[in-house]
């Protein structure tokens, strides 16, 4: 019995409840030290992708290649084998789709947009 007590008293003592440590502003200090929020991410996406689309539209109206582009796109649509596919229109389509996909992502990320608009954390 005594030997049992010799072994158990420390075990019991070590299992003694750890006192709760009061927060006392600790959490607030941690939050204040966090890296800045990805604020206005939607605005960044909007500006970058909007500028991309604007650039493509301007290029479309300014460059004297409209006829050639239309012809290439028609060729692309009619292509029946890989060898028939013209490379330039494919590249242009990718260039056009990239900012469109970016804009779509901005809309999908509506939670971030809402949070920023109403200034909620």
């Amino acid at each position, binding site marked *: 019995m005594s030997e049992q007590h010799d072994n158990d008293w420390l075990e019991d003592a070590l299992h003694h409840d*750890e006192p709760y440590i*009061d927060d006392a502003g*600790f*959490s607030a*200090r*941690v*939050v204040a030290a*966090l*890296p800045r929020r990805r604020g206005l991410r939607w605005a960044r996406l909007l500006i970058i992708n909007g500028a991309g689309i604007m650039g493509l539209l301007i290029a479309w109206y300014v460059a004297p290649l409209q006829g050639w582009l239309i012809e290439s796109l028609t060729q692309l649509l009619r292509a029946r084998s890989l060898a028939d596919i013209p490379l330039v229109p494919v590249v242009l389509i990718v260039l056009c789709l990239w900012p469109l996909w970016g804009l779509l992502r901005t809309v999908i990320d509506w939670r971030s947009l809402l949070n920023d608009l109403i200034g909620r954390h």
Partner: protein
Amino acid sequence: MELTDSDLIARVLLNDDHHAFGELVKQHQSAVRATLRKLSGGDEVLADELAQETFLRAYRSLRTFRGTAKFSTWLYRIAYNAFQTHVRRARPHELFEEDRHAPAQPPQIEAVDWQLDLEAALRMLTVNERSAITLCYTSGLTQEEAARVLQCPLGTVKTNILTAKDKLRRYLLPWKDRRLT
């Protein structure tokens, strides 16, 4: 309704919600700070610095938390790493595996305040013994969980706990027949 750790983590990951992360800190700060206080031998200032570092590291690497272990266990792992880094920087000569810093004099045990006496006795242990005892008793981890946090074999944790308890039993003898308050 109180949000679970998983809910709060999801909010942080989806919306970069600092408020949700603050709630996570509030829920775990006491346990993490208590563990670090024990690991650092009762140095509250150092423990709080390491605790802050722990939560900042947790925030930065929250995406790597896979949910296979409890969030608290994952936090203890980060806390232990922060402590280990501190020890290596502050006392590079002090190896974790060796009992180089154990003083010759036993601690002064007053048998008045259990927490103070326990901290004094813990300071007498090697870092590895102290870590094993702290994680298994203060933090309430199982020995398997402690082995994962300490990244060492389970057998090593068991040996360190046995050795540590032998020493603590000697140092804290005045507490043997006292009731803890």
